[in-house]
């Protein structure tokens, strides 16, 4: 890989130069994947600062950013600086590898929950800083290791068992008091951010953002310590494991699991704004005007006190609708209305659910980082991130949850497979209130009746505004007043209606031959 980068003239960067020289130096073997040191930490935290300092000394100018494409003169000067720095970088790597091994051993002895990657990064940053600033003085490795171990020892989260033992009681009391009241006044289900059930203290599986406020208390607490929940380039903050637990339990018991009132307004406004009719009612011009207004304004309107008053910011409600309208128009064009897109648009609750929950995660992150209330810029970023990626990711997670990919496994797994089948069956019953077979029977009975009765067929074809009432009247007439137990409701029939697009004529001649028939 390094060879490939080296030969790419006109596209080189400082990061690539440093990486190439370091991995090809006699220190390279220490940094191979799974080796005693981590290459990316050695490049970014040791090599780049050391080379940057050297470049400054040699040229009197600051080195270009690490991933900037270099001009020819920058490249030749930097190449010289890298070559000249290699012995210093090598000494730094030696110190880094030694300190990393010692720190990991100590932390392992004290049963630390920190991962090796965190230790590596902290050691590398400190060693790199020393060699960039004062390369001629000796680095006190013992002191450095002690400092790193100290900073990490304090940072680890409580284990699940310890957390539950210590906080089950206080969570129960807090929920009984404030939590359940908040849940009644601001039911999470009404804004699609979660269910109205009290969040569990902990669960036995990895949780993801699609859970929203159904994420367990311990799951939310872990986010304080999750490496990947930190921003890029952001060094891990030191959280007091008990302080974070108390803060989080307090937050779980606040409306929508957010302590900040502005955050709640954002959640409620999005839920209301995103659940609009997506069927092209808004054109992109009027949506654009709404967005200009939104961008020109400032702040989020928040209710003055904790009342039961509606928690909406009208500008945000309108802007959310406009963003979704543009998303529908652009996506339909770009993705040619593919299956995933149709699923999202047809099940608008699913779309709103993903958007609200994705943004809720960002609001929660903002509170964990004590970053102050969100700005319009923040919300714009989160909302468009949710629409450009979050909703697809959410849908994939939603579908992955139902993906039996090991179905033809050997028979010794028969029992596990049978159990999974049973679970699929139970999930269906939980969702539909009847078994899959009963549902298929009811569906077929209804479909056949509709095909047979012109009056019902007309409703399906023409979809009048009063379709639901007309359907009920007609069903009363043909199937008797107790028809609802044996036939589909109008909403269920409606969910079976497919769009048939005219213009498939050239298809019919070629596709029959090309694809065979059937599905």
């Amino acid at each position, binding site marked *: 890989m390094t060879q490939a980068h080296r030969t790419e003239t006109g596209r080189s960067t400082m990061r690539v130069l440093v990486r190439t020289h370091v991995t090809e130096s006699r220190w390279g073997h220490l940094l191979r994947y799974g080796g005693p040191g981590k290459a990316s930490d050695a490049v970014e935290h040791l090599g780049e600062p050391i080379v940057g300092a050297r470049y400054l000394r040699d040229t009197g100018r600051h080195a270009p950013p690490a991933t900037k*494409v270099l001009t020819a003169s920058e490249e030749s000067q930097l190449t010289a600086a890298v070559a000249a720095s290699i012995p210093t970088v090598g000494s730094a790597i030696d110190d880094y590898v030694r300190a990393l091994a010692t720190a990991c051993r100590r932390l392992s002895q004290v049963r630390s929950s920190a991962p090796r990657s965190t230790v590596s990064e902290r050691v590398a940053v400190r060693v790199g800083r020393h060699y960039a600033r004062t390369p001629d003085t000796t680095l006190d490795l013992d002191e450095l290791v002690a400092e790193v171990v100290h900073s990490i020892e304090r940072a680890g989260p409580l284990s699940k068992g310890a957390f539950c033992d210590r906080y089950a009681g206080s969570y129960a009391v807090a929920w009984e008091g404030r939590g359940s009241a908040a849940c009644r006044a601001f039911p999470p289900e009404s804004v699609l951010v979660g269910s109205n059930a009290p969040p569990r203290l902990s669960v036995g599986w990895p949780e993801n953002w699609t859970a929203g406020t159904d994420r367990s208390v311990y799951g939310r607490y872990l986010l304080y310590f999750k490496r990947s929940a930190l921003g890029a380039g952001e060094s891990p903050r030191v959280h007091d494991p008990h302080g974070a637990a108390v803060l989080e339990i307090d937050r779980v018991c606040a409306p929508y699991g957010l302590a900040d009132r502005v955050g709640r307004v954002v959640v409620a406004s999005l839920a209301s704004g995103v659940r609009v009719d997506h069927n092209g009612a808004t054109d992109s011009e009027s949506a654009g005007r709404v967005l200009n207004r939104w961008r020109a304004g400032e702040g989020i309107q928040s209710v003055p006190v904790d009342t039961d008053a509606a928690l909406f910011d009208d500008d945000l409600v309108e802007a959310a609708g406009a963003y979704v309208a543009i998303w529908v128009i652009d996506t339909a064009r770009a993705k040619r209305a593919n299956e995933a897109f149709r699923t999202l648009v047809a099940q608008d609750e699913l779309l709103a659910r993903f958007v609200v929950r994705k943004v809720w995660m960002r609001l929660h992150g903002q509170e964990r980082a004590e970053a102050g209330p969100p700005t319009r810029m923040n919300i714009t970023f989160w909302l468009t991130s949710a629409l450009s990626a979050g909703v697809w990711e959410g849908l994939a997670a939603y579908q992955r949850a139902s993906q039996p990919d*090991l179905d033809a496994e*050997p028979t010794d797994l028969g029992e596990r497979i049978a159990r999974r089948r049973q679970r699929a069956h139970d999930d269906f019953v939980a969702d539909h209130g009847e078994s899959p077979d009963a549902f298929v029977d009811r569906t077929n009975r209804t479909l*056949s009746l509709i095909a047979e009765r012109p009056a019902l067929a007309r409703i399906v074809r023409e979809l009048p505004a009063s379709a639901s009432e007309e359907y009920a009247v007609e069903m009363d007439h043909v199937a008797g007043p107790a028809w609802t137990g044996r036939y589909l409701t109008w909403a269920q029939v409606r969910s079976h209606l497919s769009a048939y697009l005219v213009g498939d004529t050239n*298809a019919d001649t070629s596709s029959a031959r090309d*694809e065979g028939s059937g*599905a």
Partner: protein
Amino acid sequence: MMTEHTPGPTRQIDLHRRADGCVVIGHAPAAAAGVGLAPTRGGLFTVDPVDPGAVSVLVPAAPDEECLAVLAALLGEDAATAVRHVAVTGVSHTVVTLPSLPAREDVARLGVLQWATRHCAVGLAQPLLTVEQLALSARLASVMDPDWPGERELWAWTGTILEWARRARASGSPWPRHPAVAALLQDALGSLGETLPLADARLADLDHERELLTALGTLDLRHVDADARPEWLTELRPQAAVTYGGSDSVQLDGIGAVDWARVSPGLTSRAEDAVSWRIRRQDGAHVLTVIVKAPAVAPDLALLVTPTMPMPPMKIINASVYQGDWPLPLVVAGLEFRAEAGAWLGSQHVSATVLERLSDPREGDVDVDVHEAGAVPPRRGGGSRQHAAAQRWAARGATAMRLAGITTGQASTSWRDAAVHAWSRAASVYAGLPDDIGAAPRAQCLAVLSTLGGDGTRTRPAWRRPDSEPVRAPVRVDQASPVSAAEVWFAVSHD
């Protein structure tokens, strides 16, 4: 872990701002065979497996500093500066030079793995694909979307990965001793070693296994020469029966494909003739019978199964019969998986009214849609069926082309042959679609064909159909696309 590859030839790239303030970097890929998506903190990367070096990113509106920092790490400082400029000033369009950065290649690999998970036409071992993605995601944690599955999900596989490592090194192990499989294990063990809590007792085992694997890797690698089984190949090739035996005109039986987007991967066969249905008189009543082939699963999957392996839940599958432009299904049959038959089977009584209607050709052609229960109804007509079919053929072509690249000798020739057939079919089906939908993917199909039809040297032609509508993105074919361990496993486990 994937094999290394030279980055695609993208050097300069343009950016523009959309009406909602999002910034688009690069062009939408031709995507004849579908795409993989990789959501990062810098935006959504769309990866075309046929040309993974091409860059196509959607950056959200009002990007914050973190977003720009990640873009700088993945696409270079100049691209990040340009995004800031375009997003803030509203300049509609600008061009920047991209450096080649390893982090971007890793994101492209993740995109290809995502593609393989959803679109690969053969029955890859999903556990391998899952672990490869999780190990790569854990390594990319600082640039991936913070909610993307990563280290914690990988931890659930620790026991399985350790067990795999033991099986792989056992003497006389049937595990393929291919560098890609060893690299996947190294990668997964390495990612676990970086991310597990230092107090975890399994770290010592991980180090032990990693050292042994390294030693093993330097010894006795078995030469890769897979004789792929004919049935894998036939599923990737257009068959006469499917091509000419189309039975749209026959009302009461038919064969067809499962629309891949309607059923999760790994549930049903990906062959074009996976579904067969008929309505026959039985015991005085008419019965609809639907048979859907199960995916042919590698027997070697047994080598991967461990007691602690996380297993995803299952789903209910139904078949719905549609006719003409009638918006509702006429009959729905629940399908049940029968392991002994290697198929999903379902039957349903058909009422007299429905039967009469289905038998009447004036009511239109009959379609059978196989789908997960509760899925939204299919979009029918308007060429949607051809579009899906074209993409299936291109995905088969891409799959076979990738397998040809992994194998050698006769096996490689057979895969390559299958690839040529599938890509030709994809090109001809795309040709039947309107130009705004079909032109770019068709050009990509033809570019692939011209690459495959050459003397076998790995050239990377910039091919453009001279008489076609202008295609927005130049069509490229990158035969050195990264390959997953799951594909290697599949290729070598059939000799």
